[in-house]
């Protein structure tokens, strides 16, 4: 059996690529190593009913995978720690049909024009392998617009003064603001910042046959029980409805077969544990920026840059204790963000100079986040105080948080490779992540952490504190250096020169032109924005390049901010 394309990974990237290819008439087989809890097994053009408001299943029992026993990863901050310092969960995006889209709370911002040309705009940084992207924002804009329509994005054009230009409005208006966010947004505005409704792939009105979000609050880390989150169920049901796609869950692709500069197919292990092969005219790799380089390395595709330049967003978490209850479990987890730390100002430029840096970039700041009682309870001590703490609920009901998705720069030594000893359940070497923040990330975090605490004080917080993920080991005793971010980026970077990049501007692996990477591995820089919408747009563009169905590129449209 030889299909037009094998797609490896059913997350937002693989789904977007399969959508374009099936609409172009291609036959596609989608391999997904995790289980299917997203689509109705009897009718895969409809969503399943497996998701629920169940904290145990989603937060404490690995329902969406990966199970860290079956598929561990390993971590170290650098070779001086030896082969690894941690085995278990590392940057674990769900391993399930729908991938990372299933568990996210659906914030889907676009990047800005500058994000694609950081090196030429701002210049180099010490240690970092800075580079411009081989494409510009305007090359991607039609695919951004299409992605927003496909997954259904609620937002308000013009609300963010720093936004890139848009060819049209958001498909839906924003949903209701969360109570705490109304307070933090007002405080941020008072201090000269520019909060705006987060562009969110959760329906604010019925859209594309799916209902409006009913604010249940089980959003981050949960699948949506009513499928009001469009990413990626909207794409996958559309793919399956073409009749040209086959979805194979619980099936691990162990190798891309190559011959004479082309891929010929894949080896895979299905639910029965038996290894088989399938021929393919094209191979689309969309495993995410940890599993994608792992598969390329398992396949013997050993470009020296495969796995390098891993970025995860250096997260700064500023928290403040409020007197009143904020009921953060009602709503979409995060309804407001601001971009001021990305754009920078005189104060941040001064902080960069004082840190000895040519420039400094923060990231999108998320206002708030949902919290649930089991997570809260485990933080409190046992004994007589437990019940009083849970009832008063400082951590779940009164703590307000800003999380800055700090742009981390591409460093060659922050990387994914194959662990020399630890294996997955099928016997294959697991991915090892080597990562630490450098001077740029630490300085930007320190500067913006202070400023975010000032916003919390303006909001009325009695006390404030700041922490980071990955933790920096010199702060306190209990922080862990393993990054908790699920934003993984940059491990097969795109470019025109095969000596300095792994894939070309259409996602094709240099020297293997029928292998396309369709996930955030191809990003050249991380930006300070969540990667999902950009990776969906890039995956759709890469697939359109394969199928010859590219969209026309138009220039900036004035006044559509």
């Amino acid at each position, binding site marked *: 059996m030889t299909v037009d394309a094998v797609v490896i990974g059913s997350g937002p990237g693989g789904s977007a690529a399969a959508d374009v290819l099936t609409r172009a008439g291609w036959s596609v087989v989608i391999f997904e190593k995790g289980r299917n809890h997203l689509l109705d097994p009897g009718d895969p053009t409809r969503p399943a009913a*497996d998701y*629920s408001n*169940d904290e*145990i299943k989603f937060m404490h029992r690995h329902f969406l995978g990966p199970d860290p026993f*079956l598929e561990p990863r390993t971590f170290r901050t650098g070779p001086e720690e030896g082969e690894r310092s941690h085995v278990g969960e590392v940057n674990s995006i769900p391993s399930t049909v729908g991938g990372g889209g299933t568990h996210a709370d659906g914030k889907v911002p676009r990047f800005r024009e500058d994000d694609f040309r950081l090196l030429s705009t701002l210049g180099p940084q010490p240690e970092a392998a800075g580079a411009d992207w081989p494409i510009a924002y305007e090359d991607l804009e039609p695919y951004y617009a299409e992605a927003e329509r496909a997954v259904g994005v609620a937002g308000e054009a013009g609300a963010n003064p720093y936004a890139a230009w848009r060819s049209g409005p958001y498909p839906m208006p924003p949903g209701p603001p969360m109570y705490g966010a109304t307070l933090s947004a007002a405080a941020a505005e008072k201090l000269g910042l520019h909060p705006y409704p987060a562009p969110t792939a959760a329906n604010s009105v019925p859209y594309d046959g799916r209902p409006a979000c009913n604010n249940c*609050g089980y959003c981050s880390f949960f699948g949506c029980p009513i499928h009001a989150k469009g990413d990626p169920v909207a794409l996958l049901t559309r793919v399956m409805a073409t009749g040209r796609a086959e979805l194979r869950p619980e099936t691990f692709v162990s190798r891309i077969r190559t011959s004479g500069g082309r891929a010929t197919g894949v080896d895979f292990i299905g639910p029965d544990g038996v290894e088989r092969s399938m021929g393919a005219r094209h191979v689309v790799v969309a495993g995410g920026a940890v599993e994608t380089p792992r598969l390329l390395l398992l396949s013997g595709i050993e470009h020296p840059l495969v796995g390098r330049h891993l970025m995860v967003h250096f997260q700064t978490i500023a928290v403040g204790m409020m007197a009143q209850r904020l009921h953060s*479990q009602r709503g979409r987890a995060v309804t407001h963000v601001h971009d001021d730390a990305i754009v920078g100002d005189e104060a941040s430029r001064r902080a960069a100079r004082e840190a000895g840096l040519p420039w400094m970039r923060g990231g999108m700041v998320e206002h708030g986040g949902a919290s649930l*009682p089991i997570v809260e309870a485990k933080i409190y001590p046992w004994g007589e105080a437990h*019940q009083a703490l849970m009832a008063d*609920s400082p951590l779940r009901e009164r703590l307000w948080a800003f999380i800055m998705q700090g742009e981390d720069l591409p460093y060659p030594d922050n990387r994914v490779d194959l662990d020399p000893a630890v294996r997955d359940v099928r016997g294959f070497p697991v991915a090892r992540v080597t990562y630490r923040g450098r001077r740029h990330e630490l300085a930007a975090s320190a500067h913006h952490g202070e400023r975010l605490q000032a916003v919390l004080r303006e909001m009325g917080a009695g006390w404030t504190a700041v922490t980071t993920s990955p933790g920096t080991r010199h702060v306190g005793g209990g922080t862990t250096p393993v990054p908790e971010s699920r934003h993984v980026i940059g491990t097969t970077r795109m470019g025109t020169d095969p000596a300095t990049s792994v894939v070309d501007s259409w996602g094709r692996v240099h020297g293997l032109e029928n292998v396309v990477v369709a996930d955030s591995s191809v990003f050249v820089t991380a930006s300070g924005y969540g990667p999902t919408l950009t990776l969906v747009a890039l995956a759709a563009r890469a697939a359109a390049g394969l199928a010859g169905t590219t969209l026309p590129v138009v220039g900036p449209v004035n006044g559509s901010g």
Partner: protein
Amino acid sequence: MPVWLTDQEYRVLESVCARLVPAIGARPGAREVGAADYIDRLLGAFLFDPPLIWAGGPTSGRAGGEAAFGRFHRLTRLDELAWRTRIEGSRGIPEREFNGPVAGLQQRYREGLAELGPGFCDLPPEEQDAALRGLPELVDLVYGHVCEGMYGAPEYGGNRDGAGWAGIGFAGDVQPRGWTDAEVSGP
């Protein structure tokens, strides 16, 4: 009646639960909401078919909709391998030891509760607390599960009748009702 623990182990575990999260006034503690049943059903998850690992969806019936949480998910071969290894330990079985031996929850509970001994139940509270402080690894293990048994969905065996949620004023699962826009945006 415990499903996996012996009656004696169950009584010791209940006494541990009562010290980890004591009842305060009218607010029930871990013993009152059945956290020991949650733990017992985790340890004995594979005595049920399907095993009591992942409750069903999309709704529990508590906020409308169908009472579907009680229909636990079937496990795949690999799911079962992971959860049997986690609960039963690797026991020298090669397919469970691809990264080395794993001590199971059953063994850790059985040994820990034996270390406390049946006399634990009859000690005064201060002496119970002192005994627990002497076994920090056991307490870490049990306390995590006690929190799940206090505030997790009742279908897993704890949080009896939602009493854990009611005690802290938490609504629990809310689909398909959700929250109104006013409940989201207002104080």
